[in-house]
């Protein structure tokens, strides 16, 4: 992302808009400027702000006059008055920033927007997490801190040592050079992104061990983590195994995402296959 210095009027509206705090007014040029190394290419400034297309010379003159008389400005806080942001074409490895940070960019590896897979959201159809299993969604950099791939790698390597299974369709798994070690592509390691999700699966009884490993690794990295743990409910919709383990080991949870079990296979070819599959046929 860039700011066109010919258009920018240094109104400062975009400064609080940036989730990474990467925009500032450069006193040398009196224009808003982006710290290129901290920018994660999320496009919040470009897309999230409304844009007027005012004449920059006129706006600067009015602002100078108002400043002279100490007038207090009350502009709309989410408007760029001169549409000064310019979206750039990005090349590898910087393009990874946009792919992981802009929620409207589709990951080629998953075919969906967002940073992970469908997780348990389609578990009633996809059976990604089965009975007796736990799925983990370990999100780095969120909320509002961001993360470099080198920090993600520290955790993926710790998880690999535990022998857990990385979700094959997850974008971070796609960037691994070696799933056995959890190593990521070396040319990515210094790139900063808004957030990324690592998805793994284990037997449900290993939940405390896996969470402890993640907690230990998180102390070695300079970001925040958001953790989700999922499982399949029993035939009556109950779930006591995972919640019991979490409570026993001191983890608190208030919020959950609940798959209500209303999905079914409807694609013609898949439905024919499902008709002969006892397991799938039992799914509503």
């Amino acid at each position, binding site marked *: 992302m860039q700011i066109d210095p010919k258009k920018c009027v240094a109104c400062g509206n975009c400064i609080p808009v940036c989730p990474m705090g990467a925009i500032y007014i450069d006193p040398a040029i009196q224009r808003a400027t982006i710290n290129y190394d901290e920018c994660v290419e999320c496009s919040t400034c470009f897309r999230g702000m409304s844009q007027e297309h005012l004449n920059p010379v006129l706006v600067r003159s009015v602002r100078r006059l108002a400043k002279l008389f100490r007038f207090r400005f009350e502009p709309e806080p989410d408007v760029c008055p001169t549409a000064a942001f310019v979206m750039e074409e990005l090349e590898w490895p910087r393009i990874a920033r946009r792919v992981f940070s802009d*929620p409207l960019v589709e990951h080629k590896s998953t075919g*969906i927007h967002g940073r992970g897979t469908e997780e348990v959201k389609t578990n009633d159809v996809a059976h990604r997490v089965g009975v007796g299993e736990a799925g983990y969604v370990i999100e780095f950099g969120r*909320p509002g801190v961001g993360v470099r791939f080198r920090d993600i790698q520290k955790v993926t390597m710790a998880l690999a040592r535990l022998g857990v299974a990385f979700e094959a369709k997850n974008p971070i798994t796609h960037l691994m050079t070696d799933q056995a070690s959890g190593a990521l592509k070396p040319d990515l390691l210094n790139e900063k992104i808004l957030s990324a999700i690592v998805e793994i699966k284990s037997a449900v009884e290993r939940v405390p061990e896996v969470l402890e490993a993640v907690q230990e690794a998180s102390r070695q990295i300079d970001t925040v983590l958001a953790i989700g743990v999922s499982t399949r*409910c029993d035939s009556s919709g109950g779930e006591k195994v995972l919640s019991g383990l979490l409570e026993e080991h001191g983890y608190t949870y208030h919020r959950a995402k609940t798959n209500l079990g209303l999905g079914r296979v409807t694609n013609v070819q898949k439905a024919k296959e499902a008709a002969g599959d006892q397991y799938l046929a039992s799914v509503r």
Partner: protein
Amino acid sequence: MTNTLHRYGDSESFRDDYILFAIPCRGKNDEGAVEKQRQFLRICARHKPANMGNGNFGSYRPCPELNPTVHWRRDTSQDYATVIEAVNKPGTVAAVFESREAAVAALREVIQADLGLSINMSTSVEGAHQCCQSTGLTRHSVEYSLGFWDPQDHLPNSQVLELSTMCGHGMVSFNMAKKMLDMVREGRRTPDQAVRTLARFCPCGVYNPIRAKRLLEQARTQQR
């Protein structure tokens, strides 16, 4: 939609935050999904959602071509029809409700419509459980949020977190949430105006303006 899972707050603070979303599964039920997604949104729209989105944009949107008179006359109405019509490929569609009653009423109609898509609810654990009991559904799977782990102490205060984490993609920055809190306290913006500003940054339409307004009104007198 992990972007709705990790909202900051306790169970009580989610009393006006019930998100229903529909999602097709690639290769399993994505044929004809677009019309079913639209049908899901049409059903939800009948039950007065607080917000709605189709994955690409929500009912509050920024404007790329603003007229300078915006500072006095800005159109702030919510536009559900465009959200529904703009669904153009299989993906997640979502609606946010401010009460359990509204969410349950919408869910009952979704069950009757028998769309075949996966339907999920994101709210407090108890809230989802009560909705299931009211509609006779048995939960298939559940994903618990264990919250944020922040050993290096990066995160801001709880009021900023509550407001900014309602966009789970992180498009509502901490600084913007703080700016709106300050503007409301200083009387420079009403909570309604501040909420609309924040909601416009959430591109998938899951930001809850009702909860945000309540939080901003509380914050006016209770600074944490």
